[in-house]
């Protein structure tokens, strides 16, 4: 993250977008040039300082930077400052902005988290293929590098945007905010955010989503929930994927469920296979119901586009 506006300094990039063009650009480049100028000037400035005494002119250009200028007489008194701020406060502000936007548009946003290789993208492409005629969908893809996943998503006909985090190990709310600007999702749509494959860091970063959905494949071992408790604590739903491989593996489903519920007693668990389609209908019902709750009390949104169709489908099933 860039330390000025929170964007990924040259490392993270949103597909199809030069990061420099985002609205924070002003502040961004402004500060950079300041810092730059400062570094450049420093030795020179210092010299002047020594030779000609106090050179106030120089100070105005780089206040707040560089320890050398803090030694002016009467200015060097150390003091204590109370801060009492959450370290992730900045991210949480961006997340709340995203959340407000999603609420105003009657959107359901899901943050899909898992370790790499859990079958997240396969599960997602199948979900999109099966649901795209019923619900307006869009996808934000997070990976360290390449647009391969976004390409796979777009092959289903659903709009997708890729965020490459570079050295970053998770998506943050600021990146997602920019991606939304580009994606401009429909009202009453479902936005799926496929986070970077990582069971640690994405747990701490709120993106403004309604639910975190953890995906765990049975090829990974049943003790993952207690090995990575923070992620399973943060998730509302656990999809136990690749359940079709159960006959070939020594995976104890009950044990896994017990571990997950020990970390998070409220977690809901569905057993699915994105390859065979087993259990996928349950997952779709979960999405549709969660989507419906976003539209309650918003008759205007739910009567536009296909949200009404979803309502009918849910009613038929229940």
């Amino acid at each position, binding site marked *: 993250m860039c330390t000025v506006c929170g964007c990924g300094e040259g490392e993270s990039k949103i597909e199809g977008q030069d990061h420099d063009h985002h609205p924070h650009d002003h502040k961004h480049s402004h500060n950079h040039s300041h810092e730059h100028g400062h570094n450049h000037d420093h030795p020179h400035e210092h010299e002047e300082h020594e030779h000609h005494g106090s050179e106030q002119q120089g100070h105005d250009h780089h206040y*707040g930077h560089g320890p050398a200028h803090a030694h002016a007489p009467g200015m060097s008194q150390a*003091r204590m400052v109370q801060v009492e701020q959450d*370290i992730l406060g900045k991210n949480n502000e961006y997340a709340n902005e995203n959340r407000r936007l999603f609420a105003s548009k009657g959107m359901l946003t899901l943050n899909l988290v898992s370790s790499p290789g859990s079958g997240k993208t396969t599960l997602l492409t199948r979900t999109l293929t099966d649901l795209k005629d019923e619900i307006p969908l869009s996808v934000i893809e997070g990976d360290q590098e390449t647009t391969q996943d976004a390409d796979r998503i777009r092959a289903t006909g659903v709009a997708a945007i890729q965020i490459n985090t570079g050295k970053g190990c998770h998506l943050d709310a600021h990146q997602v905010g920019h991606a939304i600007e580009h994606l401009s999702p429909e009202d009453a749509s479902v936005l799926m955010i496929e986070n970077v494959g990582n069971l640690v860091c994405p*747990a701490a970063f709120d993106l403004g989503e309604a639910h975190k959905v953890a995906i765990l494949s049975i090829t990974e071992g049943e003790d993952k929930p207690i090995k990575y*408790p923070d992620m399973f604590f943060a998730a509302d739903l656990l999809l136990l994927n690749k359940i079709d491989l159960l006959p070939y593996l020594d995976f104890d489903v009950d044990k896994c469920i017990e571990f997950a519920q020990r970390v998070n007693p409220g977690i809901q668990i569905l057993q699915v296979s994105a390859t065979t389609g087993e259990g996928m209908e349950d997952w779709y019902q979960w999405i549709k119901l969660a989507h419906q709750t976003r539209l309650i009390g918003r008759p205007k949104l739910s009567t536009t586009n296909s949200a009404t169709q979803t309502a009918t489908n849910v009613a038929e099933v229940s």
Partner: protein
Amino acid sequence: MHEMSLCEGVLQVLQTEAKTQGFSKVMTVWLEIGDLSSVEPEAMLFSFDVVTRNSLADGAKLQIINVPGNAWCMHCAKTVNVKQRFDECPDCGGFQLQVTGGDEMKIKELEVE
């Protein structure tokens, strides 16, 4: 790796505070880190040095105040100490625990000039 982002978050707050509270150098930063916050203090100390290089907090000391994890045991009806999210109640061995404290990551105070 995510401690690095957290330290960048800390630096952002320092830069904002430097403007509003009028200081130009940070000497010490006190953080409150809970046992259940998924933060590794060692990694935090390492990342802090790297992230603050050539900033207003260059060379600043990072002091981490540990906050123990607390949970309310529904069975015992009292607050008990836990080290991890999936710990059982140390008294009754049950899992009906609601975490009540120890998940904070907070910048407490700064020594500045």
